[in-house]
């Protein structure tokens, strides 16, 4: 196998005394893939992206991007990466073309090269028709795309996208996915974070589940699904008995059961399939709890996520992990 394009080895990042945003994280990313970073709010995804993009120094550990150390050769790394942060970092009062050309110039292109390269990128990204309109008049999806165009104008080898489709409607999201897939066809490695499990499932070749600054699990989507043990047990239990049920199921599986509001049921990984089912029912029986319904089914990525992080989130396909993700409540801490 060729050398990975990104190596993260034992990275620690602290904020203040108590917050360990990254706590000894290690992973490697092979060239030419779409790599998804998945995890609940505050898991450390943005922190990792910022370290990879040379914006933030790690407190410990080694990070190499495109063959260079992010600390010692930050300049060399910057010449090979593109970053689209959690917000579209573009100027409203400039046109799409001006924004893109400006970033081209800052990548070191001559005025002429910036101009031709911008035209190519805008064409490819489907914004050439609106290129001379002020970005202020763009829709949310168009803004995301122009932000992407600004990264692409420098022909980055590695592209970092922090929540590239947050706040974008489903149709535009699919367009963005297409675009991102195309990029990888051209040889670019894409590292993206997402709040949408569906996105990771559709788009990413490999996924790292990050939880509290540590690597929860890593692999292809299929591998991750297999790892939950191949099945998920769903138990419908009257609301009043949830707490008691979760307590009594504690010994059945390594990961505690959690309530999934979408399904209206308690879910837990059925590592041993029917054997787990039998054991769960016996445990409930001992606690004098009778489920109204029982089901055993193949895991979705949601289940994988719940299992691997043990998070008590209510998630569904295409929905953010937690509604607060969109309120901006978490953003204050992140941008500061």
């Amino acid at each position, binding site marked *: 196998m060729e050398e990975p394009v990104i190596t993260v080895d034992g990275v620690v990042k602290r904020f203040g005394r108590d917050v360990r945003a990254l706590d000894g994280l290690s992973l490697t990313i092979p060239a030419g893939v779409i790599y998804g970073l998945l995890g609940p709010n505050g898991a450390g995804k943005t922190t990792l992206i*910022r370290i990879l*993009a*040379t*914006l*933030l*120094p790690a407190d410990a550990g080694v990070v190499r991007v495109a063959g260079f150390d992010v*600390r*010692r050769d*930050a*300049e060399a790394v*910057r*010449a090979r*990466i*593109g*970053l689209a*942060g*959690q*917000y*579209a*970092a*573009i*100027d409203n*009062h*400039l046109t799409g073309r*001006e924004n893109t050309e*400006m*970033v081209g*110039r*800052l*990548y*070191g292109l001559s005025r002429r090269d910036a101009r031709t390269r911008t035209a190519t990128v805008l064409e490819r990204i489907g914004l050439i028709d609106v290129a001379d309109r*002020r970005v202020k008049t763009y829709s949310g999806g168009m803004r995301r795309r122009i932000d992407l165009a*600004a990264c692409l104008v*420098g022909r980055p080898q590695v592209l970092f996208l922090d929540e590239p489709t947050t706040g974008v409607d489903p149709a535009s999201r699919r367009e963005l996915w297409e675009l991102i897939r195309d990029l990888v066809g051209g040889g670019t490695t894409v590292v993206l974070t997402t709040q949408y499990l569906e996105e990771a499932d559709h788009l990413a070749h490999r996924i790292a589940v990050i939880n509290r600054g540590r690597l929860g699990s890593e692999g292809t989507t299929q591998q991750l699904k297999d790892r939950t043990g191949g099945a998920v047990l769903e138990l419908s239990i009257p609301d009043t008995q949830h707490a008691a049920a979760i307590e009594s199921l504690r010994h059945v599986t390594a990961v505690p059961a959690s309530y999934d509001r979408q399904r209206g049921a308690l879910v837990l990984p059925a590592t041993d399939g029917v054997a787990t089912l039998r054991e769960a029912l016996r445990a409930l029986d001992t606690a004098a709890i009778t489920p109204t319904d029982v089901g055993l089914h193949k895991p979705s990525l949601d289940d994988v996520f719940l299992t691997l992080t043990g998070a008590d989130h209510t998630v569904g396909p295409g929905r953010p992990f937690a509604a607060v993700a969109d309120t901006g409540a978490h953003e204050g801490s992140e*941008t*500061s």
Partner: protein
Amino acid sequence: MSIIAVTPRRLSRALTHTAVLTRRNLLANLRLPDVLLLSTIQPVTFMLMFLYVFGGAIESALPPVAQGAYINWLIPGILAQSAVFGAGPTAYGLNNDRATGVIDRFRSLPMARSAVLAGRTLADLTRSTAILLLQLGVGVALGFRWQANVFGLAAGVAVALAFGYACSWIMATLGLAVRNTEAIQAAVYLVVFPFTLVSSVFLPTRTMPGWLQTFAENQPITIVANALRGLMLGQGALVPGQTVTGQTMLAIAWTAAILAVFAPLSVRVYRRSVS
């Protein structure tokens, strides 16, 4: 971080990037007509307000060189004040760029670090120049008569702009150090208002209580205003013991000192504030 030698290639890159970002920041001014209009009308309105509200009450207290016209006293002072006010947007601009993630983008690009701050301060200097010239024009139309030759006038404007440019670096430091977007406005006013009001900008300092007078007479904005009056109106505008050259040199020294402290400081704050 490795120490980077200044090679001609790096220098030319820094200049190119500074030019690119200066243009970007100036376009932000030009493309927002309401902001452009208000930010030019406001200084002129202030000037007229001071002229007509204070004028009558003050004229008797003015030195003879003002020829009994407050406007002759006021305009050089107002130019000094405007140059300082013109530095405020440096703080807002940088603060906003950080809040919107633009600075993150810049820092992820293989670009000259100095360009972000240089591009911002130069754009603000350009805007200040336009505003000062406008005020001077309106002042002349309303009867401002400078007593020295035209070089004195130009030198006065240059001293004011240079001082304002130095203040831009104070504002750059402030804009990056204060994270909260709302607090930044208050922080700028907190610095700018006391210094412009407790000075000789509007009134001779003679009538202030002793301790305040000591501060007012020695703080940099007064010195810049004195230098401007000296350059534009002549020696008669200064109190005995001060000379035009002396006040001008002192104003330039303040400018240099502020730059020497705040340019490196703001670069430091820039480096860490974003990480």
